[in-house]
């Protein structure tokens, strides 16, 4: 669906974006939030240092189509699996969980097996993220 028809459509794609872990680097996630908004999506931005419980509860209340979590502190091996498992517990396992930040290749592979749908790391283009989310939502 192109931008123009998205603008007037009733069914907006809703995405939850949050930062997990203790770091405060929100440059990337804010740029992504603006890009998603410019692509016609409704972006619920939860801010910094959110716990897995906060993120999943918000995703539930907001009935989002996708959850995006950015993590640049190194705690990814602990936090992404926690978020994925909580999503499963609350019935949100069908929503894609996408991740971003400083994550080594081998950790990404392991985390994808644990429930992260896709990682967007330094150098990723915002249009790729938009396309991925639109694709994932269309599939349903």
């Amino acid at each position: 669906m192109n931008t123009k028809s998205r603008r007037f459509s009733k069914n907006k794609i809703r995405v939850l974006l949050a930062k997990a872990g203790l770091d405060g680097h929100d440059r990337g996630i804010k740029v992504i939030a603006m890009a998603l908004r410019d692509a016609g999506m409704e972006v619920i931005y939860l801010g910094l240092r959110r716990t897995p419980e906060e993120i999943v509860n918000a995703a539930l209340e907001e009935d989002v189509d996708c959850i995006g979590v950015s993590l640049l502190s190194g705690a990814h091996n602990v936090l992404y699996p926690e978020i994925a498992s909580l999503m499963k517990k609350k019935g949100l396992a069908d929503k894609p969980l996408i991740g971003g930040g400083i994550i080594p290749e081998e950790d990404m592979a392991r985390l994808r097996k644990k429930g992260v749908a896709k990682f967007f790391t330094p150098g990723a283009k915002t249009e790729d993220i938009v396309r991925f989310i639109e694709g994932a939502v269309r599939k349903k």
Partner: protein
Amino acid sequence: MKKLLKELFKGDKSAASRLISLVENDEEKGKSIMKELKPFLGRAHLVGITGAAGSGKSTLIHGLVGLLRKSGKKVGVIAIDPTSPLTGGALLGDRIRMQGHEKDKDVFIRSMAAREGVGGLSKAATRAASVLDAFGMEVVLIETTGVGQSETAVKDVVHTVVVVLTPGLGDDVQMMKAGLMEIGDIFVVNKGDLKNAETIAKELEDLAAMLPQREKKPPIIVTTATEEKGIERLLMAIMAQRTERMEIKALLK
């Protein structure tokens, strides 16, 4: 849908969430959901919290939710932000200031984009409030960005309108003249730690006194939401109006 309604009455957040999406996106389904919910409405005190962006509404609401929970009341929050006219998308960031209730099943927070709502409350937001009402919420706080005259439609939907102002955010007195003086049931001057706060509160009092159609003076409360000052008084003012406002609304139906 029948299943969702059953789950809603059992207190399932997931059902409430799905139903809000349905009333937001689907006119037909929305209508029939409203029909089903009608007999279960009327418990919730709907409070509109309106004011310019940056006036601290979200922080005030966070404070109110905390106090309401302490007194055992179930609270719903609907936070509305504008939709970009260019792209149709929206950045909904009010939840940033409303953290800490994720484990509480008696708090439900929903962010909504204004979408085609030109001002005041869209039909979707009104219906979402009804879903939360039927869900069992005793108070539903609805946060909207006041843009002068366009916010007056809020008054037709909610029981109590709280208008939030802050010193230094442009000409607050102008805002008064744009119709908010008439629709506000309670006025809040937030960021009370700033030097103009008391002055604005005084100006409001004078303006309120000038309005002929008001028999009772609306409460004017100075708060500093970030330091949790004045929130209790605000809540008391809201609760004081609850019975009266809800009765009036019921009569007007």
